[in-house]
């Protein structure tokens, strides 16, 4: 997994670049926060229990990093909000989580230790293998500079 700062940073760059089309985020800024929540959700669900509990629980929480279970978790999370907001929050959470999974699919893994994208239907794993997970930290300065440039240009 690339670190969460890379996930959130790239998401910010993505939203700012497509701002003319994604006007919803300028009208309702809290939806951008929901989008960020969606993008950190897969790692928060699978990694936080490892920190709080023990390494042995890894395989129990690992399925929460797959599309089907993320769909259900996003639905469950959206149910905690007000009725009128639920649908938009659900869609935005899904969108954020999908961006997270897309970025994760680009990383390298050893052997079969990738993510089982089609769980529970298949345990077949697949990754594009462009970079190692921890190498994403080296992109953080570039992302930060991009964010600053975008900010300055928009002003």
């Amino acid at each position: 997994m690339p670190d969460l700062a890379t996930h959130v940073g790239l998401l910010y760059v993505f939203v700012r670049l497509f701002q003319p089309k994604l006007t919803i985020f300028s009208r309702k800024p809290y939806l951008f926060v929901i989008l960020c929540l969606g993008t950190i959700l897969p790692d928060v669900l699978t990694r936080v229990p490892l920190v709080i509990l023990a390494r042995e629980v890894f395989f129990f929480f690992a399925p929460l990093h797959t599309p089907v279970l993320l769909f259900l978790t996003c639905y469950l999370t959206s149910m905690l909000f007000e009725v009128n907001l639920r649908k938009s929050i659900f869609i935005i959470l899904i969108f954020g989580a999908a961006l997270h999974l897309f970025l994760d699919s680009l990383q390298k893994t050893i052997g079969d230790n990738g993510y089982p994208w089609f769980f529970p239907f298949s345990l077949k794993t697949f990754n594009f293998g462009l970079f190692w997970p921890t190498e994403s930290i080296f992109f953080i300065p570039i992302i930060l500079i991009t964010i600053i440039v975008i900010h300055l240009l928009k002003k």
Partner: protein
Amino acid sequence: MFTNTHYFLKILITFLLVVGFCFYGNLQLSGKFPSYEHYLSNPELNHKKEILKTVQKIVKIYPSAFVIREKGKDILVKTENPLVNNFKKGMVIDFIACFNKEGYFELQRYYIRHWIRVSIFVSFLAVLLVVVLFLKYFEMEIREYKIFKIKKLNA
């Protein structure tokens, strides 16, 4: 009354589905991906498959290889990864390697301990940022909702 029951039923069913899939995933995935401890404790697997070496100090560096000392014995780990240039003598790394035909360890994947710490730290900062933004926007939303309700009552 019906709406409330319907709402809680939906939450309960989704929650049970998620937990059920997690149990199923635990059974399936733990069988598919044996733990690294399993590799380490099985000498036969050690020589056939990739294994994880944790907290190893590098004792010597070559242009395309490095040496670790294990139980008083030096092990040469070969690599084609150009990022090996980042390695320094005495550096602590976690790595996965497998034996090649020549009997050398071939590096497949590694984590430099301090980069993992940096990765976890920036991830924590990202989560903190999202939580703060979430609380800030929703506090604003709640305040606006209360003002709207008071105005409605006054009218």
